[in-house]
């Protein structure tokens, strides 16, 4: 089994949801336990049996995933109104009223 690592994030900078989502994405390669310590979020990652991923690769992959998940979170908030508008144009009451679309 590969080496377990701990990756540290500042609580004020990184959201817990992004860490959870990143941990979930990596559930096939590593087990992740997240804990709070003062103003830090500590992610303890242990590679699963049979996974050949060294500590540096595991750290890079996790941080990349956290970065992507945090971006997904921010983008989702930004586009939510237009997403809802498109969905209502497609399937909501607006779909049946072409003159009121857009």
């Amino acid at each position, binding site marked *: 089994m590969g080496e377990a690592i701990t990756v540290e994030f500042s609580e004020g900078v990184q959201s817990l949801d992004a860490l959870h*989502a990143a941990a*979930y*994405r*990596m*559930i*096939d390669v590593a087990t992740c336990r997240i804990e709070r310590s003062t103003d830090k979020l500590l992610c303890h990652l242990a590679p699963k049996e049979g996974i050949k991923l060294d500590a540096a690769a595991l750290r890079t992959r996790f941080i*990349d995933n956290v970065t*992507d998940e945090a*971006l*997904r979170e921010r*983008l989702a908030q*930004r*586009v939510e109104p*237009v*997403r809802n*508008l*498109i*969905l209502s*144009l*497609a*399937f909501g009451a607006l*779909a049946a009223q072409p003159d009121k*679309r*857009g």
Partner: protein
Amino acid sequence: MAGFETPEAYRAPHNPVRLLPFRFEREGAGYLVSNMVGDFVRLTNGEFDALVHERLSPGDGLYEKAYASHLISREGQSAQLQLVAARLRSRMAFLQKPTGLHMFVVTLRCEHSCPYCQVSRQSTDRSRFDMSIETAEKALRIALDSPGERIKIEFQGGEPLLNVALIEKVVQNAKELAPKVGKHIDFVIASNLALLTDDILRFCKLNEIFLSTSLDGPADLHNRNRPRPGGNSYQLAVQGIKAAQKVLGADRVSALMTTTEASLDRVEEIIEEYVALGLDGVFLRPLSPYGFAVKTKQIRKYDSRRWLDFYVRGLRYILDLNRRGTNFFEFYTLLILRRMLTDEPIGYVDLRSPAGIGLGALVYNYDGRVFASDEGRMLAEMGDNSFELGHVNEDDYRSLIMSDRLIDLIGSSLTQCAPECFNCVYESHCGADPVYHHATQRDAVGIKPLSGFCARQKGVMRTVLDLLDGSSADAAILRRWGGM
């Protein structure tokens, strides 16, 4: 005096750029990005960074790329939103024609003893494992109550030709009743063809019945996978396919293969077998985790990665055949391509969300129980009745489709909001498949990073995208398959 307006008058108003919803995934040195209707575009790291920070302007190339890919719009513009909405509506229009497929399990008996049999066939006791005419009539009434104008009735087994008398009665009754309720019915018999006779072929011809059979490859592989008394499954299947092609027409019979561990190194031979028989394509189908495939541990003999290697090698071989002038498809790839390249409403039951259980198909078991999918009745034979919706004696179409159980299963497994799926770059072209995830993880949603289904879908779509981008010759063939 008449004159021209200044060039500024013709420029689009400089309203701010507005991001539209998109999904993304890192790949190599860049990002794979898909818009709300699943169009893909590959961006470099720099392009992706500029996109998410809205640092793009007309004429810089990226603006045009992002605009054409429906990743951005302008504040106040509505046409593009309406276009995306119309495409989305078209893609989901399969929901307007619910339950197009009705499967009648006319018997669970079978004369084959395949170790990977997913339906847990029985070899004895006609009275116990054959569907009765009373049950069939009630099932037919439910099928005719479904709202679609065109439905398909598929006769399944076991081996359905062991109860051919019932098939004949159902077809006769259905043809009498369908016009009265304004329906057209297509019929399919899914058979190993070992019991096919001239009389059955004549009956199929008369009633325009399509035959779907199994062919696992060359004789030794097929007979190893599909044992029967006499060891002649291959000979009878090939004989049946040829006879059906002659009597019914080449386009009225198709074959399916199932990948076992013994198939993995032989994809070229399997494909050549199909080509030699004049079949127009093959479906490189993995084993499913049901029935004897689980009991005999066949399902554990290879994983998704090994199946993907098999699939990629097979697809490359098929593309090579096409380049040399033989028109031949890999049917799953064809389906994925139609999802990726068109906005057709494709409601293939395993590859849609909301899931196809019940809404796409109902299965009437030999004993009258009604299941939400073929795989659901396979699980029931293993003692798990999670996908049993009711019984033909007590239920009608509405009570089955509106059952709490079905609504819960479909509602809880939507990929549009399932963990990881909702952000997955391939979501628009994927499916929920709650039965698979229930069977493998005891959870209808499933943990997708651990899901063989998820690994296969992503692998197939990545392969197809790489081929579309990597070779113009392959792309031309694949675009033709996708109907472009």
